[in-house]
């Protein structure tokens, strides 16, 4: 009977966590205005992110945004008021475990329970795709989504309430293709890609960039999430005689693939790594197993300042980022983690947009603001402009190639127009 009591206590504790929420009715808070999520003193926005599970690598993004919003809420803006024109930003984000079905459910929570003004920066291609119809149906802005699929910009007509942010994968892949045709004209290319839309978008872009030289690709191998070893694929790529290796993969597989290739004694002359995985800490992991010389010289691309690069160590924006993260971020946040920086960069544009949505922001005015973005985001590489118009729905379409060396990626060459 004692055990039963103990169990009862445990279960009651669990239910105490869930039931009040389950049966509680949402109370109307503050004075309602015409626009959900906007009161005289606050503006509520939200998004979904993988905080746990296989993609929890990205968990710092919403936390970086949170830190930035906290700062915005406590500093006096250009108009002398805190927050956005005196409204505090309320930032709600939930863990969808990188499962689109959860994304849908949590987005419903954001819409119906948290009454968000807009869905901001939600992460994942399929995840945003899953919630796009319902957000558009309700005319709720879905802005600055954290995915590089191309259709956020391309399908503006069908989904006018949705807009992307970062350079898309096709554009990025194209940049690599162009670079290869110019710098390694006789390359024999092996492509290692993730077998889904993400990897295939990149591959498509690469081929567009290569143009007539598409035939340079001598080996295409894909991997699945259920692969524990890529030795089989990589042995074949090695055997193909390729000397240029393009990796279109997410971070952990990229690390594994590079170390495995080294173990197979395969050293391509040129290694190209997609920007998603071109993270200094990721490369450091490779370097510690495969040796720095293996990855030195690897090519990638970027549009944000690399906050780890010594070149930027005295950059006022990077310095301020470090200070703000320490003050407003989660305790123990590692400012070297580029995803916090990404969060800051995105939050910067969010604040701009919310400000531009006007004195009495409405969902329509916010979307209107997304169609006339035109500014320099100081977190981005010099020269890159955040720019949209009624016909251009790709906020960031410029990028710069970067080269790995001395433990960090350094940008080089001219700005490349993605579209």
């Amino acid at each position, binding site marked *: 009977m004692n055990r039963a009591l103990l169990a009862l206590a445990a279960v009651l504790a669990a239910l105490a966590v869930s039931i009040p929420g389950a049966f509680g009715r949402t109370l109307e808070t503050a004075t309602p205005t015409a626009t959900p999520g906007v009161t005289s003193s606050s503006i509520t926005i939200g998004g979904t992110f993988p905080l746990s599970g296989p993609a*929890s*690598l990205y968990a710092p993004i919403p936390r970086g945004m949170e830190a930035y919003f906290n700062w915005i809420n406590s500093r006096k803006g250009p108009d002398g008021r805190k927050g956005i024109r005196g409204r505090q930003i309320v930032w709600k984000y939930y863990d969808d475990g990188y499962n689109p079905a959860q994304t849908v459910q949590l987005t419903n929570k954001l819409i119906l329970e948290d009454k968000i003004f807009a869905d901001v920066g939600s992460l994942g291609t399929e995840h945003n795709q899953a919630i796009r119809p319902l957000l558009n149906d309700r005319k709720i802005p879905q802005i600055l989504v954290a995915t590089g699929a191309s259709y956020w910009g391309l399908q503006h007509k069908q989904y006018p309430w949705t807009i992307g942010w970062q350079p898309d994968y096709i554009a990025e892949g194209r940049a690599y293709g162009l670079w290869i045709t110019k710098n390694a004209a006789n390359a024999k290319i092996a492509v290692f890609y993730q077998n889904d839309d993400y990897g295939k978008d990149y591959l498509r872009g690469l081929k567009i960039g290569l143009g007539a030289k598409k035939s340079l690709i001598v080996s295409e191998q894909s991997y699945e999430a259920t692969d524990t*070893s890529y030795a*089989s694929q990589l042995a074949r790529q090695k055997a193909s005689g390729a000397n240029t290796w393009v990796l279109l993969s997410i971070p952990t597989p990229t690390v594994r693939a590079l170390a495995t290739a080294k173990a*197979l004694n395969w050293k391509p002359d040129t290694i190209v790594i997609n920007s998603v995985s071109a993270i200094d800490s*990721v490369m450091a*992991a490779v370097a510690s197993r495969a040796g720095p010389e293996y990855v030195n010289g690897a090519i990638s691309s970027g549009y944000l300042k690399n906050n780890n690069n010594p070149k930027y160590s005295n950059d006022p924006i990077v310095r301020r980022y470090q200070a703000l993260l320490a003050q407003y971020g989660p305790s123990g946040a590692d400012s070297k983690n580029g995803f916090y920086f990404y969060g800051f960069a995105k939050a910067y544009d969010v604040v701009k947009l919310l400000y531009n949505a006007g004195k009495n922001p409405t969902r329509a005015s916010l979307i209107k603001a997304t169609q006339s973005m035109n500014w320099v985001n100081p977190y981005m590489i010099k020269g890159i402009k955040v720019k949209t118009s009624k016909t251009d729905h790709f906020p960031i379409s410029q990028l710069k190639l970067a080269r790995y060396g001395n433990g960090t990626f350094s940008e080089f060459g001219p700005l490349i127009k993605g579209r």
Partner: protein
Amino acid sequence: MALPLAVVWSQVAQQVTSGLAAGAIYASLALALVLIYQTTNVVNFAQGEMATFTTYIAWTIMNHGVAYWPAFVLTLLIAFGGGVTVERVLIRPVEHRPELVIVILTIGMLIAINGLTGWIWGPEVKAFDSPFPNRSVIVGGVAISIQDIGTFCVCLGTVVVLWLFFRFTTLGLAMRSVAFNPDASRLMGVRVGWMLALGWGFAAALGAVAGMMAAPTVFLDPDMMLVILIYAFAAAVLGGIDSPVGAVVGGLLLGVVINLLGSYVDFVGQELRLPTALAVLLLVLVIRPRGLFGRVVVRRV
């Protein structure tokens, strides 16, 4: 298929070699599964997560400046203690409940430990040191990485040690007798409870070995063992869930077959190689339910 014969053969050899390397890791974890199954008739779904957790502990120890081998031994001891504790605290109370209940308990452990690992150490991929250099030797056009050779030897070494232990030590004999007939063993003065706990301890330590052998190539990641566990499970069942030798053979076979399927069967390709391998495995089981090396269990009526 239209490649010159010489090229094909060295490539086949390469595929087999790397398959053996991957298989050695499956085999190590499969051994841990078999060890627990042998002594307690439980399939421990948390085996992979326990391995991941202990590998992170090893990483932490090394991060504090301890050299590889001392850290390795220390981790084995911690894993052993952890395994014994798990058995005494969690498994003991449900010992006599149906198999399913214990399976669910280990699934609960899987979920909790996986979450805990991510929570404590974060999701970023980490490099894990290895005593073996990340170089390779070339034999007849086949590149064999020294790490893989090391993993392979450690795996085989473990089997030999286990075999010697169960064959020639009193403790090993006692554990075997418990697995074979707990009631009779109890009558003969064997402390059955402690033997089961020891079984869990050894399995946890074995898992730690598997984790530390896998981590240098798959890198340290909270989910690194989730998929490997499925392979190990398949290897153990294929070999015969109660046969240590079967686990090793099953693991190696699985590694090789998957590589060859992916490379040389066009319809399968890289994307369908796991489903195909599992389908083949199930076919084997349907024809031979006890696995390749499993004992025949005479159905007693």
